[in-house]
């Protein structure tokens, strides 16, 4: 059965888009179906994202625009799946595209229909808090930017069809069924947030000042209903006291979902911090049980929230809310830690709602035939976390289990990796490389500029006197041709532009219309089809930054348009053609570190036929996982480990170097050369390895405790030692009372982060003990139990089996005292006060910390940064979690941050997919706009080397001048303005061009 080199991605959220981009870049045709009328999912509704407080739109919309314009990606909006048949490698799907009543080919997204529509309807994007028209776009930066008609709100008055200059409105558009043929399917339908209304107790929907967290997210957003001000819905005042209630709809066996939704603790902290930032009068208080800040830099965020922003945390679960009718305030009754009953009045309450499986989960599972787990999320196997029960169908994002954006992006790339492995034989089969006519050489030619001024229906023409701008443009320097069009971006006008270029043999083109951010690639593509170098093009934004914002002063708007066109012409006179540097791509891969992550990544490459070298420092493979017998879910880790090691040894595309270390690494993406040396630095006969990609999987080490008499008294052990006793039946039956202490070596001054796995480890071992010896007594002393996600059920199981949990505060840790022979622990717990526990065995839950010396040696060698906890620092915590800023180098496993085995495997697969975007090509095209250095002016001071975030600049030792690696340079220009000798310039934005524009002041 012949494999199809195409993939269907279900769901246009951040996960769906990330997997689509990875696969499109790896040579596959990708279809993305999106239920609503625009991609972006829930992330598009967020104002800021934790832990960096990034503006969600700033980091998301470039990815959406890229997906919208990618030649290999086809977006099918307003669509859902009807039928599936076929099997892995060759699926046939029947998709229903619901009518939009507006032809998306013709619609230019100008928005006149929405403006003139007399009907006001509710805007779902803004959670029903803003009004919208019946003809609407999902949100202003939607991709694709096409309008649609909400049929139930529309009264059919016909005005939108009349005012639409592009004749795009089609009232009789029918739903359309299309059939597509793909090799693999990736499920990324995301989640539905829990609707708190059924829980009458919290008064959501009844009391106006009780809002859900997603509604509060819109309130915080500058484009939201209150323009970013934190106000109360009941009277528009600033709420002084705001309460955030955690675990609404999560960790609730009776009324809602038993699992933990993983992200609420963090997004609540962020919403509280941003609310405080927007309105200093706001004093947020967060009511939670545990604070589950388990991810990278999460704990630091919580500490900053408390210290710097004064966010108050109260450890108590609110049972009910009443409203004080006089002022719509809300009265919260709760039991404080020490048991006293408190009643407090708050101006506003935000319910941190959990994540439910999407409402069409059951329907999808029926159509596709994959299994759901007990919570109706998609069932996955522990050691292959992105594979569903049906082969050829993979899953990523919140539909697999509630997870935050970085984990979703990792799993998106991981699922793309599985698709890669399945279909790599059919790579590039359905992807047509566009053929362009030969590029005309314009060197030495005098500039002959053509200008196309757009009316954009009435959006520009209605306010700016377009004909007078065209007249004005005609007699500017070197302007050969100027005309105006109704819609310059429409398909027929592209053909006209190509003809005009040939007819008047123009060698520079200027389009005065809307924003270059979305339309520059489109016009560059068009002039390339006319044989012109795409960089011989300049845009003047006379719509979004002129006609639309100066509607009441048309004369001034027309003058401004003339200025902008004049400035574009002056720049156009100086621009030069640019070539994108081509680098050849060596298809071999070097994986450093032989733990589970290293092995999984190495196998991911080898199975696609890429030659992979695996370097392991110690004498055997397995890394940290060697000490783990079982996961908390009960999967046999040792058995999995031996299978994977056996598979690795057998795979002939995989060459393993034990007891070896990296000696030197030279080169850059696609052209690395590495010399190995054996651990005891014996000579190594392997010579230098040539490869294109590097994967850092150097893992982490267990903290060796010095406190609590560890290694001084045999009765003090770590969880690993305890696990060995239990699983290798070496447990001394005389031991009756066991005490465990959490957060040893984590969340303290030296390691201010949570090691994420110790809670699960402690609970796994306690359950194992209680199963073997039910009568033994186990007490766990903890600061927070962070069994996030679907692990919550085991925390409940441990409690039901008699394991006792006692909380202690960070500043009052338990003290161990040796009275004669027996050991006593003094604990001062907030809920039951001081207590002394005699014990026979003390188990310390020790954290994971990075291998400090080897990381500090490896980082400068690879020229990649470490974060202040000395873990490796990835390019972007949210959207490029496994890439380094330096192209071609990736990181996964404990080297990135502490994580569980399945999460490490997921990250390893993610690296495979990310690297495949390079490995799938024989040569890679670098940026066209790059910096170049004039060595006659370079004084070799090296300031630019530090400035460059992409390590694209290196010092040429003999000539003592700098060199710029065009393959790595991203064209940001930071080095240009840092250079004292004006030796560096940025092609496409040269100093000369910018000065010319500045001189255009009239």
């Amino acid at each position: 059965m012949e494999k199809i080199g195409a993939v269907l991605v279900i769901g246009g959220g951040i996960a769906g888009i990330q997997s689509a981009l990875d696969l499109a870049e790896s040579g596959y045709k990708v279809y993305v179906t999106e239920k609503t009328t625009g991609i972006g999912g829930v992330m598009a509704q967020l104002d800021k994202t934790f832990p960096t407080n990034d503006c969600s739109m700033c980091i998301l919309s470039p990815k959406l625009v890229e997906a919208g314009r990618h030649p290999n990606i086809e977006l099918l909006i307003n669509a859902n799946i009807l039928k599936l048949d076929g099997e892995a490698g060759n699926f046939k799907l029947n998709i229903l595209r619901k009518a939009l009543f507006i032809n998306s080919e013709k619609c230019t997204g100008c928005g006149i229909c929405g403006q003139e529509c007399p009907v006001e309807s509710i805007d779902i994007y803004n959670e029903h808090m803003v009004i919208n028209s019946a003809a609407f776009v999902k949100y202003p930066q939607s991709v694709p930017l096409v309008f649609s008609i909400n049929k139930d709100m529309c009264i059919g008055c016909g005005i939108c069809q009349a005012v639409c200059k592009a004749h795009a409105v089609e009232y009789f558009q029918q739903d359309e069924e299309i059939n597509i043929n793909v090799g693999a399917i990736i499920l990324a339908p995301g989640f539905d947030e829990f609707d708190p209304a059924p829980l009458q107790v919290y008064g959501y929907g009844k009391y106006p000042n009780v809002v859900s967290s997603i509604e509060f997210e819109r309130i915080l957003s500058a484009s939201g209903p209150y323009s970013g001000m934190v106000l109360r819905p009941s009277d528009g005042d600033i709420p002084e006291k705001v309460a955030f209630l955690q675990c609404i709809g999560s960790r609730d066996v009776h009324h809602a979902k038993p699992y933990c939704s993983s992200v609420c603790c963090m997004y609540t902290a962020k919403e509280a911090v941003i609310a405080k930032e927007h309105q200093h009068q706001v004093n947020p208080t967060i009511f939670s049980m545990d604070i589950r800040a388990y991810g990278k830099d999460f704990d630091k965020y919580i500490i900053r929230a408390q210290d710097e922003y004064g966010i108050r945390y109260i450890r108590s679960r609110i049972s009910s809310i009443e409203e004080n009718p006089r002022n719509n305030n809300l009265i919260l009754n709760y039991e404080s830690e020490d048991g006293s009953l408190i009643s407090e009045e708050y101006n506003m309450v935000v319910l941190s709602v959990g994540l439910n499986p999407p409402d069409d989960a059951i329907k999808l599972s029926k159509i596709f035939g994959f299994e759901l787990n007990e919570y109706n999320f998609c069932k996955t196997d522990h050691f292959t976390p992105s594979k569903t029960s049906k082969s050829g169908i993979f899953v990523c994002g919140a539909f697999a289990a509630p997870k935050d954006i970085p984990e979703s992006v990792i799993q998106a790339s991981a699922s793309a990796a599985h698709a890669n492995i399945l279909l790599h034989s059919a790579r590039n089969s359905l992807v047509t490389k566009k053929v362009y006519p030969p590029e005309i050489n314009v060197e030495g030619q005098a500039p002959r500029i053509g200008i196309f001024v757009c009316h954009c229906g009435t959006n520009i023409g209605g306010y700016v006197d377009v004909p007078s701008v065209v007249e004005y443009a005609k007699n500017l320097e070197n302007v050969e041709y100027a005309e105006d069009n109704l819609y310059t971006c429409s398909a027929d006008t592209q053909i006209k532009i190509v003809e005009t270029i040939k007819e008047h043999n123009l060698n520079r083109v200027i389009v005065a219309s809307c924003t270059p951010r979305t339309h520059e690639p489109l016009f560059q593509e068009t002039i390339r089809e006319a044989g012109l170098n795409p960089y011989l093009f300049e845009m003047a934004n006379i719509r979004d930054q002129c006609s639309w914002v100066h509607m009441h002063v048309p004369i001034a708007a027309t003058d401004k348009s003339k200025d902008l066109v004049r400035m574009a012409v002056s720049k156009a006179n100086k621009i030069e053609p640019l070539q994108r540097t081509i680098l050849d791509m060596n298809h071999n891969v070097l994986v450093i570190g032989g733990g589970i992550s290293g092995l999984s990544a190495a196998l991911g490459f080898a199975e696609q036929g890429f030659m992979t070298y695996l370097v392991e420092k110690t004498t055997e493979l397995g890394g940290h996982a060697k000490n783990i017998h079982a996961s908390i879910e009960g999967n046999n880790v040792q058995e999995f480990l031996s299978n994977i090691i056996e598979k690795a040894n057998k795979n002939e595309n995989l060459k393993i170097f034990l007891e070896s270390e990296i000696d030197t690494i030279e080169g850059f993406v696609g052209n690395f050369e590495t010399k190995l040396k054996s651990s005891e630095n014996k000579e190594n006969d392997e010579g230098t390895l040539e490869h294109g990609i590097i994967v850092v999987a150097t893992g982490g080490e267990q903290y060796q405790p010095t406190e609590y008499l560890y290694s001084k008294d045999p009765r003090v052990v770590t969880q690993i030692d305890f696990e060995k006793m239990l699983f290798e039946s070496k447990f001394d039956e005389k031991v009756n009372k066991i005490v465990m202490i959490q957060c040893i070596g984590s969340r303290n001054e030296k390691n201010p982060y949570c090691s994420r796995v110790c809670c699960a480890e402690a609970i796994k071992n306690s359950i194992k003990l209680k199963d073997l010896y039910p009568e033994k007594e186990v007490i766990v002393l903890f600061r927070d139990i962070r069994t996030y996600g679907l692990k919550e059920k085991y925390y409940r199981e441990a409690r039901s089996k008699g394991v006792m949990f006692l909380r202690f505060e960070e500043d009052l840790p338990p003290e161990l005292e040796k009275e004669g022979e027996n050991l006593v622990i003094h604990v001062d717990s907030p809920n039951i006060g001081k207590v002394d526990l005699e014990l026979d065995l003390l188990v310390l839950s020790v954290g994971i910390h990075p291998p400090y010396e080897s990381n500090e040696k490896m980082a400068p060698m690879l020229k990649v940064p470490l974060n202040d906890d000395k873990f490796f620092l990835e390019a972007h915590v949210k959207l490029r979690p496994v890439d380094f800023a330096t192209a071609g180098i990736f990181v996964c496993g404990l080297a990135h941050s502490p994580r569980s085995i399945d999460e490490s495997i997921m990250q390893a697969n993610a690296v495979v997919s990310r690297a495949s975007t390079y490995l799938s090509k024989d040569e890679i095209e670098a940026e066209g706009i790059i910096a170049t250095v004039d060595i006659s002016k370079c004084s070799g001071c090296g300031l630019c080397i530090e400035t460059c975030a992409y390590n694209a600049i290196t010092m040429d030792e003999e000539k003592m001048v700098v060199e710029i690696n065009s393959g790595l340079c991203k064209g940001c220009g930071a080095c240009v303005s840092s250079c004292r000798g004006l030796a560096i310039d940025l092609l496409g934005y040269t100093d000369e061009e910018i000065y010319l524009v500045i001189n255009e002041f009239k």
Partner: protein
Amino acid sequence: MEDTEKTEEIQVIAPTDKVTDENWEPKIIAFLCNWCSYAGADLAGVSRIQYPPNVRVVRVPCSGRINPLFILKSLQVGWDSVLVSGCHPGDCHYISGNYYARRKFSVLDDLFEFMGIDKGRVNFSWVSAAEGAAFANIIEKVTEKTRKLGPNRLFKEL
């Protein structure tokens, strides 16, 4: 509010008119970083938020690209004031571009003061892609501030 008669437009000098004091309108050049501030300016357009027409935008890849000499040159050529706007810290598409910009411009501020250039003529701001209204407010404030400062005669007398 759409009032009954047609709103009369502010009479703005056509490019070729001689600059006389009474019908003078400030001219402001703005260097906007492509990924955040330029996107914020576009959002103000998409949401049809009106702001004064005195600004002419120059798009650069990153605020890190803006060379202090551009600012000086702009004032020298006659622009009445300069606005430089980049991404909020942490948002930068090129990771650290805007950190360098911030440090450079804080030094520049003192230099301009030392050179006797009125502080109001050079403005720095950080606008994200979602802050359309914020961008419009900044433009209004800078335009009003420049209007109060009057035409830029600094380098004319040199």
